[in-house]
């Protein structure tokens, strides 16, 4: 009887440990999956910074293009930014806008991250938000300057975690663009917005 009790206790402990280990493992795996798109973006940014002097703008653009297309949920970003105007566009216009917005995002990254001086990214934490969204908090460390706080909102899209917003020192790019673009649409119309975005992309290209 004593033996059976001991056996039962051991079995219970074993099952409990296995159960909790599986839970912890699953949580770690999920955290890694959520962090993955951010890590990929940071790796690409460091790469284009390190290669700024040897690689051409186009070569660095190609690196970022792959990252942005794969790890950003651009259709969702475009939809949120254009808000109610999104519904007024036909499917082709929506696709064109997503493409244009991607080109602007990629060109901006290539233009801004154009020199390497020992910078690095530091992972801080992950916070849960509403509707299965998560915020990944990181810091961009600069040797001769204050660090920049970079947070990313990440959401699952058909089984793949993707970035849907970038927040730099508290400023959410999604909100910023939404206010900026809606003001242009209101004052001058959607065609003027497209024209202005094309101009911005052109300004970012090397002269």
């Amino acid at each position, binding site marked *: 009887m004593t033996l059976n009790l001991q056996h039962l206790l051991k079995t219970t402990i074993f099952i409990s440990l296995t159960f909790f280990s599986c839970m912890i493992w699953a949580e770690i795996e999920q955290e890694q999956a959520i962090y993955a798109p951010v890590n990929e973006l940071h790796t690409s940014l460091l790469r284009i910074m390190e290669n700024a002097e040897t690689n051409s703008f186009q070569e660095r653009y190609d690196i970022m293009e792959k990252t942005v297309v794969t790890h950003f949920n651009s259709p969702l970003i475009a939809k949120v930014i254009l*808000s109610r105007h999104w519904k007024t566009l036909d499917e082709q216009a929506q696709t064109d806008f997503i493409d244009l917005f991607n080109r602007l995002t990629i060109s901006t990254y290539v233009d801004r991250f154009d020199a390497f001086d020992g910078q690095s990214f530091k992972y801080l934490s992950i916070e849960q938000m509403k*509707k299965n969204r998560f*915020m990944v908090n990181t810091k961009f460390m600069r040797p001769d300057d204050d660090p920049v706080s970079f947070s990313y909102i990440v959401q699952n899209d058909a089984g793949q975690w993707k970035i849907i917003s970038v927040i730099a020192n508290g400023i959410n790019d999604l909100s910023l663009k939404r*206010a900026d673009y809606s*003001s242009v649409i209101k004052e001058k119309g959607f065609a003027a917005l497209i024209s202005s975005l094309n101009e911005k992309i052109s300004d970012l290209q090397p002269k």
Partner: protein
Amino acid sequence: MTGKLYNFSKLLILVGILSLATGCATTQNNDPLERGNRVVFNVTETLDKHLIKPIAESYVDVTPVPVRTSVTNFFNNLGYLNVILNDFLQGKFEQGITDMLRFTYNSTFGIAGLFDISTPIGMPANNEDFGQTLATWGVDQGSYLYLLGPSSTRDITDQVPSTLLNPFFYMSGIIFAPISALSAVNTRANLLEQSNIRDEAALDPYSFTREAYLQQREFKIHDGEPPASGYDDIFGDDGDDVGGDVGNAGDEEESGMLVIE
């Protein structure tokens, strides 16, 4: 001195009127004064483009970085009594004591604040002002306000303590005028990178500046750690027609949301 206090009392009246006139007028729309704000914004932008920015760029060209750093340290230190006051008003007593030490060290061993000797020994600068204090006391940001720069009817009230607590305010006009000019040029020089990024990115610089200002204020109010839930609003999960970030667009028509599942 009497004249300066007279001018200051006029500023107080202006701050009071603006706060009273618009403080209660805001719910979703953070920019009911947009029309007037845009006029002031355009005037200051023109003035900046043709006068202040070129002076600031020339100042950067001819002044070595260590000198500019010391000038910035000097003016930051002069304004630091306001940070200390607001530390205590927000109940951050430990930070207040550290900031008092920081001010004392930099004012003495740092030669009137020219050198920031406190940061390397573990007393970095904090960013507090009366607008943040009011926010921690639960005061709403009120209406967005553009005067010499972006502000709000809540945040503009900081002009009162920050002016009165700045030792510089009590100096005679002969010293005050040129040092004020240096302070303005140095501040503008420190903002050159930011303003260039804005000009590069913004389609409508007014909306862009307003949105960036309002968001960065939230960031500062929460000492760089705003709650993640605040960033959920833009996705309009509850199907709200107005709200959060988008309300800053200053027009309910523009703030329709999409429900993102």
